[in-house]
Each structure stands twice: as structure tokens, then as C-alpha cells.
């Protein structure tokens, strides 16, 4: 057998990620949806549906998702719902922008909090799309696009 460092793998599959992948938060349908979007990653078949309820107060009152995907994309969607509830849609969008920026290897000043757990994907370029899929879907839900979001 060959010896190799599994540090990077442990970075990618941190406990927090595996936990959210195994027990995703806010998984399922949402009553009284105001915005929704599909996210599709043709590469690996990740497929999710994101639901938002945006109130008259211009706040994301609730968020949920359904679908199937790899650990990274499910954990990312789960973390997303945890994060954006209570934000204004514009805030959520700029947070998404900062996160995507960061995961594709660029700098950002925004405080990412527990989303930093996703940073392991930077060493795995083919997995960045998984980590960002839910965020693209969220953007597209807020914009009320007609076509499914995709990460291509």
C-alpha cells in the first residue's frame, strides 16, 4: 500500500460538514413559500430544491431544502438555511457572493462564521461547484429566475 497524507481529506470532510450531511437542518418542504429555485449540478447529479419565505418586512423568515447530493452540497445547503434565516434578501445575496468568492480562492472581508468549514474545497477544484450550488440556487430564487440554477 501507498502512504499519503489524508490531512486535506480531513479538511474537506470536517466533522461539521459530515454532521450537516448526515443530519441536514431544515430539510423538507416549507409552508407558504414565496420564492424557490432548483439547483442542478450536471457533473455529479446533485439536485436540490430551495424554498424561501420572504416576509413583508423584507426578511427571510424561513428557508428549507429538499433533494439529494454529495456530502458537500447537502452540508452546504443545510448550513445555508441555518445562516440566512433572518437576513434581508440583499444581505443573503452579498453573503453568498462573498462565500463563493472565498471558495474559489479569492480574498473577502466578510466574516463567514461556521461557513468557513466549507473552505476545505479550495484544495479540491472539482468540488467547488458542490459547495456553491445551494448558494447559486438561493440567488436565483431571490431573483425569481425561470431556469434552474446550475454551477457551470
Amino acid at each position: 500500500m501507498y502512504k499519503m497524507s489524508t490531512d486535506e481529506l480531513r479538511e474537506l470532510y470536517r466533522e461539521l460538514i459530515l454532521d450537516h450531511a448526515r443530519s441536514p437542518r431544515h430539510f423538507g418542504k416549507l409552508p407558504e413559500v414565496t420564492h424557490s429555485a432548483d439547483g442542478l449540478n450536471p457533473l455529479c447529479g446533485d439536485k436540490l430544491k430551495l424554498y424561501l419565505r420572504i416576509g413583508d418586512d423584507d426578511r427571510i423568515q424561513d428557508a428549507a431544502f429538499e433533494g439529494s447530493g454529495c456530502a458537500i452540497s447537502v452540508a452546504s445547503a443545510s448550513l445555508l438555511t441555518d445562516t440566512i434565516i433572518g437576513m434581508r434578501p440583499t444581505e443573503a445575496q452579498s453573503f453568498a457572493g462573498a462565500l463563493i468568492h472565498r471558495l474559489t480562492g479569492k480574498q473577502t472581508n466578510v466574516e463567514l462564521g461556521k461557513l468557513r468549514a466549507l473552505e476545505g474545497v479550495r484544495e479540491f477544484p472539482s468540488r467547488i461547484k458542490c459547495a456553491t450550488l445551494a448558494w447559486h440556487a438561493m440567488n436565483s430564487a431571490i431573483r425569481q429566475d425561470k431556469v434552474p440554477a446550475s454551477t457551470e
Partner: protein
Amino acid sequence: MNQVLSKPPSMQADLAACRRDFPALSLQINGSPLVFLDSAASSQQPNSVIDAVANYHRNSHANVHRGVHTLSHRATEAYEGARDVIAAFIGAGNRSEVIFTSGTTESINLVAQSFCRPMLARGDTILLTHLEHHSNIVPWQLLCDQTGAKLLVTPIDETGSLDLAIFDKQIAGGVSMLAMAHVSNALGTVLPLEHMISRAHEHGVPVLVDGAQAVPHMDVDVKSLDCDFYAFSGHKMFGPTGIGILYARSEHLERMPPYKGGGDMILEVRFDGTTYNELPYKFEAGTPNISGAVGLGAAINYMKSIGMDRIAAHEADLLTYMTQRLSEIPGIRLIGTAKTKASVQSFLLDDIHPHDLGTILDHQGVAIRTGHHCAMPVMEFFGVPGTARASLALYNNRDDIDRLVSSLTKAKEIFG
């Protein structure tokens, strides 16, 4: 007569030497020697193919067919010589039945558009199987959109075998065209072509076989298969990308209108009317992929130098070993367990998503494919979003499979 024959060198040892012919197989990936188990997606090239293409460009390149100078003559000989090699390799009766295309996908689109489109009417039926690759589904869906024809699909069972009883009824029910894989790329099932083609022909149904996953692994003879069309790709059989073949019976080709218009496929062009060239040129519009054809010819010569029988035997042995080793892993689910199979094993492990498996294996230098393998209907049938797939070629060996198994164990560890 009583002769003492020297024992042939063991198959394993013998094909081991081939491995050194493929430079990519000595790559280090993430610090480990590459284990390449993704040949069903695209195979690696031996030096003889890489060199044939490079040398063609150093010594023999010009445009084909149209030139009187030496390089043009060399290029034409190289290109047409490759056609002869291919025709002989697949047992085509006539070199003019071998059309160069850009790949299996284009070969199938050509048949759909030039052969089927003019003959189909609203309500006509095209029969496919549930095993097909998207390249043998979408061209027919486009054709249905264009003509009002509809698709009929032969179902599969839990092992990934066709339901032949249903097929027999379907084919007898008035079908205009049958299109099916020779070997399923997602499951490895080898389809019972002999039975299916003879049934189809009893009912006067022309048959296209998608041979993309067969030609690299077994002896294929289009004449004894008795199919009407046979499509395959260079890049899955150790040849270049951007080149493929459509074998078609000349009686069909003669009646079919051209698929594309352009240079080389004409005898005479006038604005008030154009005469098409004879076969196979009528179907080869524009400057062809000359170096691709040369590379494909070299790939076939390489395969012939080993022998298709030896390749098939070696891979059968390996596939058995792989299936057995995989099935010993706790939590594995093998997908595709038909009796007759070739070169491919799909699987799932615990509830680790295939994409995660792929990443973890890659990190250990093991290249497998994960996802839907361009066969979404197969995935849907098994109720999975995708699988992990290990696929074999002549250059793989038991060490590769041991490495696959040990890196799957690592994945189990990480996912705890």
C-alpha cells in the same frame, strides 16, 4: 501426433508488459501512482498512437483527396489506409461502408437524421432499451420532435438485463427502427444482439448498434452480427478524440441523403444543382479528422498486436476478480449484475455519495467515474442519483483492483 507445446506465458504477466506502452499510466496523482479505472469514459493512448499522430504531422500532412503533390498523396494514403484497417477489424464487407465521423454520438445522429428522418411519419415507433447512453436516446428524441414519431423502451430487470419477453412483443408490434447498445456503459450488461437482431429482421426492422463500449473489449464482426448500422468512438479504444466510425450497409447508404454538405462530398457543384460523390465520401463533408483517423488505425493495430481474444480473456478474469473483491466490502451495493457482462462495475458504498467516494479515491490516486454516466434512465430505474463506476481496459491488473478496494476502505474510515 504427440507434440510437447511450450506453455504460453501467463496472461497476467503478458499483458503486464502492455502497461508500459501507456505513458499516462506512470503518472503520479496526489502523490500516488495512478490507478486508472475510468476507461469506459475515455481510454489512455499507447505511445504508438501518440507517435503515429505526431509523425503524421511531421512527415505526411496536407489536405486529402484533392491534391496532386506528394504530401497530399501521403495524407490520402494514410487516411484511406486507416479506413482499410478499420473495415478489416470490424469485418465490414466493403471499405465504402466505413464512414468517418467525430464519434459515436455523431454516428447515431447521422443515422437518425439521414436514414430515419425521411422515412418516418407521425405515430411511427422507434424502439430503444432502458440501458441506453444519452447519445442513443437524445438523437431519437430530437427526431421524434421533428417527425411526430414516438419512443418505445424495452425495460430491464434488477440485474440490469433486458426483459426479452417484452422485447419480443414490442419488436413484433410494428416498429420502424431499433437502436440499442452492444454493451451498457453504466452496468456492463452485454446485450443479446444475436437474438434481438434476428427478431428485428424477421419483422423488417433495421437495427443500429451502439458499440462504443464493445469494440475496445471484444471481437466485433458486423457481418456476422448482421446489423444495419454500428457506431463507435476512437477515444474509447486507445485512439484519439474527435474521431469515430459509422459502419452502415451500403444499400442503406446509397439511398440516404447526405447528412452534411460541403467539400469532398460532391462530384459537381453548380448553383442550380449539385451531384453527390460516391460512398463513403457522400457522408464525409469537409476536411476530415485526418490525424484522428491515422491515430485510430494505429490504435487498432496495437489492439490486433495483442489480440482481441487475449484482451477479452484478460478483462473477463479481472472483472471476476474485481466483482468478488468489491462484494466482500461490508456495505457495498453492486449495481449491474447481469450474467453476461463486460469491463464495468457500478456500485454504491454505505450511504456515501458517489461523488464523495470519487474525491476520496482520487486523493489516493485511484480514478473512477461517479455520477449518472450519461445514463440517467438507468439511474432512475435503480432509484439512485448516480453510482461509482470502475471500468477496465487491457492495461489494468489485479494491483489496480487491490488499490481500489483499499481506498474504498479509507473512504469508509473517513465517513466513519
